[in-house]
Structures are given as C-alpha cells and as structure tokens.
C-alpha cells in the first residue's frame, strides 16, 4: 500500500475550540496536556494528529465519546478550519483552497454521512438524496433516476415521497447513507453511519461499502463505537483519546501490541482470537522443517479453533494467498490465545 502517495495526509494537525485558537497555539509551549489546555480556556478537539490514509484503504477511527473523532473527520473535509498543521488531500493543501476549488473538491471527490444525519427537513427522501446532484447542476431526470437507484439499494423503496420527520431514526440514517452513495465519491467520511440500523441492515450496508471499496477502490474513513464492526471493515484502526491519536495500526497489532496503557484498556474486553490472524502470530521459518498441510495465514485464530484443538503437530506451516509457506505457527501459543493462558 505505501507505494502510491496517500490520499489524505495529516501532519501535526491541531483543532482548538476557543476565543483565539491560532494565536494561542502559536504561543503555546509544546507538549502541553489536554487538561492544561482546557484550563487555559480551550478545548483540544484534535491534538497534534499525524496520520495518513492510503488510496483504497478503510481507516476506522474509534474512541470514547468526545475524544475528537468527528472533529478530526470534519478537519479532513474542511468543515472545520484547522488551527495548526497541514492536511493534504490528493496532494492539495486543503487549507490553501479557495472557495471555488473547495466546492469543486466536495462536489467531485468527497462524500460524508453525518452522525445525526443532517437531512434537510423540507425535502422529501428523493429530493434529499438527489440534493448533491442537484447542486452540481444535473438535470432533473438523471438525478431522479440515480437517486431512485440508491434509495432502492438502502431499502427505502416506496418511501421516496416521505419527509424526514415521517421516517424512523434508522430510515433517516439510511437516507443520509443514500445521499452520500448517490455521488459515489472517491473519499468517503462516514461518521457512525450505521449506529441507528438494525443488525440485519447494518450487515448489508457494511457489505455494500466493502464491495464499493474493493471494486471501485474507494478510500473510506469510518467512525464507529462498535469493535466488531471495526474488525469486519478496517484495514487499520486509529484509537483516539482527548483529541490525540493514541495508536494507528492494523487490528491484530492493536490487540497484540497496544502502544499505550489506554489502548490496552480499550481493547481488553475483546476476544483476541477473533482479531488475530494466523500470520500475525506466526514466527519466521528460519530454516525450520515443517510438515503436513499448510493453513491459510489470513484466517483468524478463532476460525482455526477446531483444527488447532484436533491437530497434534507442535508447529503448523502458514501459507499466503499464493500458497507459499511464509512461517510457522506455534500451536500452544495459538491455543493459549484461544482459550486464555492456563
């Protein structure tokens, strides 16, 4: 992945809420803590964040309520003007864009689903979904066809003439999702997009986004409070606390090697066997002789549970997608992970 230049690259981004954030930031000594900053009358919504999102990647942001997830995403889309640092989107410094370019960027490249939906109350479902298309000046007929297509996709067919207040919370959320699907942006910001959906539809929607990401190479920044969802979707997970990113890494490494105390606490309750893949636990070959059937490195330990219990070998060979042996998995280690240390 790191070969192509990142789609979003944030360097030392700060977003302070308060009377004169830029001035304060300029005069602030480095390393000041969140509490100290708050004592000075500022809220650090985003605190010195540096992060990159590669093309076609799905980055999931997690963290407690108020940790700055939404704020960070709003900085990426320049709904907030950042107080310090730099954000490049597709190689452009978004803080340097003028109004026209910013509008163009949002019309053509970015889409967002809002935490509390942000539907226009006076427009029907159809008109809400068609809204971004209308703003781009598409003619009525085309935009209606396209809107109907995505409305069908999110399962709201037959409701297209309803007004938002006539819909349930989950249905409203699906209108918000449909609206962002309608333009199929390259870069997608999803702020808890499925929080109000029932498990069934939630899964369907997750699949839809996974499909889009895989087929069309969309870049997605996804906020969620649901770890299972994160694991299902994420290429990488970023954990935020008090505006700062504590750790940003692949799911297994977050679980296996938490960078800080906080991340460890955050991931303590998770069933590690569901997260860690065989290749993540494997040791390098280093000339060890391996025997017998190789196992798929991308399977989680949980997927391999039955095999691990029944197999008698001490070390199991691990194969990559092409079938080449890449390492060995110590069975005892895997069983410990699966069942907990004895």
């Amino acid at each position, binding site marked *: 992945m790191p070969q192509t230049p990142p789609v979003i690259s944030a360097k030392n981004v700060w977003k302070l809420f308060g009377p004169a954030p830029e001035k304060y930031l300029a005069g602030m000594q480095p390393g000041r803590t969140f509490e100290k900053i708050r004592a000075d009358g500022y809220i650090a919504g985003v605190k010195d964040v540096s992060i990159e999102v590669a093309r076609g990647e799905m980055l999931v942001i997690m963290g407690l309520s108020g940790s700055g997830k939404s704020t960070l995403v*709003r900085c990426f*889309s320049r*709904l907030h003007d950042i107080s310090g640092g730099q954000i490049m989107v597709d190689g452009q410094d978004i803080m340097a864009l003028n*109004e026209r370019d910013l*509008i*163009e960027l*949002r*019309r*053509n490249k*970015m*889409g*967002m689903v*809002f*935490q*509390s*939906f*942000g*539907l*226009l*109350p*006076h*427009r*029907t479902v159809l008109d809400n979904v068609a*809204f*971004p298309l*209308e*703003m*781009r000046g598409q003619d009525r007929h085309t935009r209606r066809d396209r809107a109907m297509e995505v409305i069908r996709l999110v399962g709201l067919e*037959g409701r297209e*003439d*309803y*007004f938002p*207040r*006539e819909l349930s919370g989950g249905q409203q959320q699906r209108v*918000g999702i449909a*609206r962002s699907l309608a333009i199929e942006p390259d870069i997608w910001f999803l702020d808890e997009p499925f929080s109000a959906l029932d498990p069934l539809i939630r899964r369907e929607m997750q699949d839809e986004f996974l499909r889009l990401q895989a087929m069309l190479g969309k870049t997605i920044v996804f906020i969620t409070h649901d770890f299972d969802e994160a694991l299902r979707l994420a290429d990488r997970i970023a954990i935020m606390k008090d505006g700062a990113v504590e750790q940003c890494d692949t799911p297994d490494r977050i679980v296996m090697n938490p960078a800080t105390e906080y991340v460890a606490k955050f991931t303590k309750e998770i069933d590690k066997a569901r997260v860690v893949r065989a290749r993540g636990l494997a040791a390098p070959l280093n000339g060890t002789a391996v025997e017998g059937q190789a196992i798929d490195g991308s399977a989680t330990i949980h997927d391999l549970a039955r095999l691990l219990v029944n197999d008698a070998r001490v070390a199991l060979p691990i194969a990559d997608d092409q079938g080449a042996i890449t390492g060995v998995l110590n069975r005892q280690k895997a069983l410990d992970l699966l069942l907990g240390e004895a």
Partner: protein
Amino acid sequence: MTSVITEVPKAQGSAAPRATILRLMLGLALALTMAQLAGILPAWLHRLPQAVIPPTALFLDRVFDFVQNDLGLIYVTRFIAEGPLEFLLDTSANLLEGKRRWPNLGPIPWSATAGVAAVVGYALGGWRLAALGAGTCVWTALIGQWKMAMQTMSVLVVAAPLAFVVGLCLGIAAWKYRWFERVLKPFLSVLQTLPFFTYLLPAVIFFKVGPTAGAVATIIFAIPPMILMTTLGLKKVSHEVVEAGKMSGCTRWQMLRHVYIPAARTEILVGVNQVIMLCLAMVVLTAFIGMPGLGAKLLAMMGSFKLGRSFEIGVTIVLLAVTLDRMSKAWVVKQPQHFEKGTPWWVRHRIPLLGLAVFVGFVLLAQLFPILGSIGRKQHFSQGKEIDVVIKSFLALDGIRGVTEWLRWFLNVKVLIPFRNGMLAIPTPAFILMVVAFCYWLGGRRPAIFGAVFFSIVALSGWWDRSIITLYAVISAVALATLIGIPLGILAARSEIWSRRVLLACDTAQTFPSFIYLIPAIMLFGVNDVAVVFSVLIFATVPLTRYTVEGLRTVPPEMTEAAEMSGSTRRQKLLSVQLPLALPTMAVGFNQAIMFAFFMVIIAAFIGTQDLGQELQRTLAGTELGKNFVLGLNVSLMALTFDMAITAWAEGRKRALGLE
C-alpha cells in the same frame, strides 16, 4: 435544595456602595422636591429655562430640508411613491374595491373572495378555519362594510409582502454580517418604540398624502420584527444540516436558497404572522392621515359618539384580525404531507383547483345575482342605530351609570389628577434623579447611565411637561393593570384548563389592532382622561396576565414538588417558590405592558389628552417634521429607559436562577 435557589445573592462588594448611591440620589431628589414645595427652589432648578433649551426641532427641520431638497431625496421617494408603489396600490385597490385604475377588472365580488377565503382556510387548518374565513367575509359584506374593509385590505396586501421582503433581506444581511447587526440593533430598538405618528408625517412628506404614505409608514413599522425573526431563524439552523449542504457542494447562494431559508421556515413564517398583524393594526391607524377604510370610519363614528356603528366596525376589525392571525399561524405549523404513489394530478393539486373553481363560480353567479357581487346601501343588515340605542340605554341604567360615573369621579378626582399634579410638581432634576435611581436599583449601572442621558435629552427637548403627562398616564395605567392582571394570572395558573383558556384569550386579544381598545373605553367613560387610562389599562393588562400565567406554569415541577414535600401550604408555595421563579418571565410581561402603554397613550391622544400624543397628532396636519421627530423621540427615549432597566433585571435574575 430548591428553596436555596430562590434567594439570589446580591453581587458581592458592590452591595454597600450601591445602597449608598441609591440613598444619596433619592435623598437629593427628595430635598429638591421639598424645596420646591416650600417655594424656596429657584425657578431654573424646577424647570429648565427656555433660554437653555436648544432649538432641536428647528435644527432638525434644517437637516430634513437639506436631505429632502438639496440632496434630492424627495425626488427619489416621490418617484417610488408615484411609480411602482402607487401602481401596486392602485392595482390592488382596483381588484379589491373597484377603484378606477388599471386593470379595471374589479371589484371582485365579495362572494368570490369569501369562497377563496374558505378554501385557503380549509387548506391551512381544516373546516374551522374555512368557516372563520368565509364567516368573516360574509359578516363584513352583510353588515355593509365590504368596501371599507377592502380599502383597508388593499393597502395591507401591498404593504405586508413588501415589509416581508425588505425584512427578510435585512434579516439575512444582519445574520451574515456581524457589524451590520450591531449597527442595526439600536435602530431597531428605537424604531420599535417610536410612536406610529412619528412614522406618518415623514411618510406623508416624502411619499405624498394618500395610500402611498400610509403604506410606507406601515411597511417601515412592520419591518423590525421580520428582521429579528429572520436572523433568529437563520442562527438556529442545525449545524449538521449546514454541513450536509456544504458537503453537497453548495455555493453560497445555493446554501442560502436551498438550505438556510427552508430550514428556518418556522421562524420566518412567525415573522410573516407578525408582519401581517402589525400591518393590519397600522393600516387601521393611518386613518389619522385621512386614509379611507375601516379605521377612518371607526374614527369618525367614535368622534360623533355613534356607539352602535363603532361597535359593528370594531367587530369587523376584530374578525379580520383573528382570521388573518389564525390563518398565518396555521401556516406556521403546517408541514408538507406526501401523496401516495400514483395519486392523479388533480388530487395532488386539488386545493388550487378548488379555489379556482369556487372563484370562477362565484364570479359567474355574481353576474346573475348582483347581490353576490356587492351589497348596496339599502340592502345591508347593519343594525347600527338599534345597537346604539341598546348600548346607550344599557349604559344609562341606574346601576351601570352609577358605577361608571362613580368610577370616573373617583379615578379622576381622587387618583389621576392628584397623581398627575404630584408628578408635575417634582422639579426636573429631582425627577431625573428618581428615574436614574430606579434604573440603577433594577438594572445596575448601564441602564442607569442610559436613563440619565435619555431623560436629560427629554428635558432639553423643551417638552418636559407633556412628557411627564404622557408618563403619568403610562404609569397609572400600568399600575392599575398590574393590580388586575397579575392576580388574574395567578388565579388562572392554578388550573390547567383555566390557564389554557386565559392564554387563548390573551393571545386573541393581542391580535386586535390597538385602536379597538378605545371602543369600550369611550363607551363606558366618554371622552376624557379616564377613558384614556382605561383603554391603556385593558391593552396593558393582556401581556401582564399572559406572562404571569406563562411564568407560573413553566416553573419546573420538581421545584414545586420539593416545596410540597416540605409541607408548605399553597400560599407558601406560591410566595416562596413559584412567584420568585416566575418573576423574570413576569418582568417580560411587565415590560411589554409598559411598551404597549406608551404606544396606546399616544393613539388615545385623539380623545383629548394634553400629552405628547396630542402635539404629535397636531403635527400631522402640517409639515413640522422637526417637531414631530422630537416629540416621537421623547416617547421612544422614555420607553427605552424602562425597557433597558427591566430587561437587564430580568436577564440578570434568570441567570442567577439558572433558568436560561
């Protein structure tokens, strides 16, 4: 826990000097007054000598003259008046009342208007509003006031949309540019307290006598609330909706057109309601510059003490007001509904189609039966004379007459005249000191400083005595209104049902054009000071009662429950929990009562007072713009002084109680 909250600690530190300052000011005022009563106060301390009073009016006349003629503003305004504005007014006058102007189609048969009113009412609020709309039209036509009513309406239908558009644009500008809002705010405060007569004269001079002047004055008067509501609504738009708009790639114009304004629909429509109601009230008042219509007729009838006809016109005005108010309020709460798929177009558009059909139908019918077109002089059902006899004989009943005459005597001789003389006896500086002390006590330093400046300007305007008489009428009326309105509100607030009834009654009463309140006053007391105070009194009681009920009803239930749990009696609960918590809201009502009173006192001038209103009304006949302006400004400055002090108090109190 709750009982603690009702005791608001005074700001520390400032308490001691504050009491001293207050005592000092009042002491000085008292000393000056005593000296005056003892006859040892030098005359120049009692009233400012004529010599030091600057010729403000003359100076203003020069300024106006300069703007009007040298800068050529009058050509611009006259152009507007004789061009587009007059055209619009003529068109509406032709359609509604049949004035001989382009397009020469009118008048629209009253039955057609009634039918359309019914359809509009139905669309907005179902059968009840349909009945109200049609009923009002039928009543007006049958009673023989159709033409007059349409004269009034023809100005309203032009003034209200114009006021709406201008108010909306200024409101958007004020929301967009902070500096503009900051500049606009003080202007709006003054505009909202300036008596209507002060709008009329410049309108007449700049926009020529007749409907145009009336329309312009009306429009200007109705704009401020529209501005305020627009700004309020736009500020309240949820920021996620705004962000959704931005992420959809809206340009600035698209944001405004497709996101902000539709999302602020409710507040904007509340503004529309206020614009319509103010316009109606003001169009009626343009009678004072000789505009024909319901107001002019009412003025004439009351002037010649024809109570029956006055009563009928009053009913028409009230019906019109209630209809317009209910319909525009129904529009506020009406939300769009979707149609099921496959609904045919004539069902989707059934309301406009129905309206059109009813309209065409009645227009055709009116060709066959002229009575449906217009009701002639001899055909109407006005019972003016009979009602006149009934009212007058009712008032002449011994019981009634005894009471009204005693009241008149008692109020006049025992209350009003002594009070007025007392106020006039106070030396100017002492009076200003008392006002400042009052403001300081209520609202702190800022209102006190403004009070001092404002009242000094009033003193320097050269109209001190008349200002004091105006103030006397306001204070007496509001004091009496407090004695009636607050107990009434407290009583009503005891039960859910009565609260609702009283609130509804107050709401309805507040929609009546102020002019209406003069009718019962004149009926009961004839043409004199007591009638003035009485009309102001009923006008001012309404907001007092209303906010008392609202204040008491909105006391958080957990607080009253806490009081109940600690075993307090109803009376204790009221005095120690409910009233203190309701007081800030009640203060809003009190403030409104004072503002209303200032407004009404000036209008009541035509009954024959000796206050600023009287002088103001006199200027309407001439061209003394400067004097007119000075008089109006005096009213405005006095009103603003109270407004600032009371608002400051209510806000401070709310903050201290944690009610905001």
